[in-house]
């Protein structure tokens, strides 16, 4: 139903043609397409029940109103409303009058959005290309590590942060009983990951790679390293040079002595963590006090006020959000929890939207994001506030 409305955009064409006719004194006959268009939407409306049509009008109007809270309504949204109205039997005049009022409100909404968006901020210069979490569910750790890297001006290992977080949530015995591999742990809360890692000290990315793990993806690299410990023979004979090559995909600076020490002093479920302990020494000890803010509901005024305040002060934040709109800007899915960073803000003069610069961990190509979003050369994407308002529910800053 929505697809049909969005695809046809018949009402919008009628609107434009009707306006053209009245403004330019063209007759319907001079605009030959009009009768065909009208015939077409009448045919479409015959396929739908009255209740479906009323529901379509309600939804389309709600979308317009929701967009107007943050800036101008898009032509797509206004077009959807006109389509739905014309199909549901609203007179052309009534539908056009409503569209005129929306366009008038759009002008005010544009000015309001521009004013409230404030000055342009971009911290992108302080970041490298967007990271790539490839096959692991460690988005929270990538966002948290980026936050710390920004603060310390040194690349901090996201993988180490993820492992610290998971270790803090489950004892080695529980992990052993669960039979889960390290790579199978996924999802976490940035504030806790930062706190837990700060207690042990932060590990440099150069000591524990979070991406570029060699002839395999991250999960594969972890699993291959784990297999060394799973071989009972190694306890007796010690690790060989090939084993060391395998773990070096994760821990480039680890020595054979470190590896052998880890083999004899760890359990199967704590082996990767033990390797991280050996590889990351000496850790960077620094006190951090992550400040989380959670806000749910339709209006995230506190959350966005905080985002704006922090960005104005030059502080990036992590955002906890539902990721569906990143892949598909039209998606209303609210299932997939994800973590990204907000590192900038601007007012988009073309769309009338206040947009935030989002640093994700989906690689620097950024084609995983809906191409409707502008992107920069580092793979960061500009997401309008109205999209984030629906999907972001928490922030963390330092």
């Amino acid at each position: 139903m929505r697809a049909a409305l969005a695809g046809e955009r018949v009402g919008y064409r009628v609107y434009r043609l009707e306006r053209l006719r009245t403004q330019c004194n063209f007759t319907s006959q001079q605009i030959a397409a009009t009768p065909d268009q009208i015939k077409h939407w009448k045919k479409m409306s015959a396929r739908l029940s009255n209740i479906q049509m009323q529901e379509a009008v309600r939804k389309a109007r709600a979308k317009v109103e929701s967009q107007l809270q943050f800036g101008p309504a898009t032509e797509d949204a206004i077009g959807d409303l006109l389509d739905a109205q014309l199909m549901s039997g609203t007179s052309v005049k009534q539908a056009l009058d409503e569209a005129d009022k929306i366009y008038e409100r759009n002008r005010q909404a544009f000015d309001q959005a521009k004013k409230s968006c404030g000055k342009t901020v971009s911290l992108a210069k302080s970041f490298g290309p967007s990271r790539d979490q490839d096959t692991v569910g460690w988005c929270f750790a990538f966002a948290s590590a980026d936050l710390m890297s920004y603060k310390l001006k040194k690349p901090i290992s996201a993988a180490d942060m993820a492992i610290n977080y998971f270790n803090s949530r489950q004892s080695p015995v529980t992990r052993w009983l669960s039979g889960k591999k390290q790579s199978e742990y996924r999802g976490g809360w940035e504030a806790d990951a930062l706190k837990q890692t700060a207690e042990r000290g932060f590990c440099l990315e150069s000591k524990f790679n979070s991406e570029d793990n060699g002839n395999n993806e991250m999960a594969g690299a972890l699993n291959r390293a784990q297999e060394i410990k799973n071989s009972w023979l190694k306890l007796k004979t010690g690790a060989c040079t090939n084993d060391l090559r395998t773990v070096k995909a994760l821990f480039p600076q680890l020595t054979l002595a470190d590896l052998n020490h880890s083999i004899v002093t760890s359990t199967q479920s704590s082996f990767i963590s033990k390797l991280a302990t050996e590889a990351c020494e000496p850790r960077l000890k620094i006190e951090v006090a992550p400040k989380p803010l959670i806000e749910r509901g339709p209006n995230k005024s506190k959350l966005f006020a905080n985002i704006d305040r922090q960005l104005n002060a030059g502080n990036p934040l992590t955002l906890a959000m539902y990721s569906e709109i990143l892949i598909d800007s039209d998606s209303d899915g609210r299932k997939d929890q994800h973590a990204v960073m907000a590192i900038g803000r601007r007012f988009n003069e073309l769309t009338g939207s206040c947009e935030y610069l989002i640093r994700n961990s989906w690689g620097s190509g950024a084609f995983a994001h809906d191409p409707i979003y502008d992107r920069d050369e580092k793979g960061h994407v500009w997401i309008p506030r109205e999209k984030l308002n629906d999907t972001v529910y928490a922030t963390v800053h330092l």
Partner: protein
Amino acid sequence: MILFMRPFISKLFFISLSLPITVAASLAYAETCGLGEIKSLEFGLSEVSNETYCFDDEALFFVSESCQKGSCLAEKQATKRLPVSHLDLGGPAGTPQSKLCEELGGTMRIVEFKVKERWVKSDLCRFSDQSFANGDLLMKENREAIQKQKEQLIE
């Protein structure tokens, strides 16, 4: 005929990418194919392998040259399995590209492609016949397949 080979379809160029030949394709942007270098970390050490592949003007999309001959597994799998719903590509476990690669039966890894004199960081979804495409190309083709499916539904 699929889809993701389309931007690269024309003739084969067995050339060294250190001396690339750029040709105007019929689809509005140029293409370059030939023997090039792919860098990855192998057991913690940087390793460069030589493979033949094609890329577009902006070096955003990469695909193995074998797919130009129309019989690579990457292309077959994409023809058979795309589109994959965007809802199946979200979630906390990995990037959408890596999930799409897995859905198609490939294995993802992070690499760098040599493009003229610079290294371009990307990823590579490798199939059992050694053909490959990068994640962004697969995502782009998936979007087009979704769009096509939507249009068919409307009709």
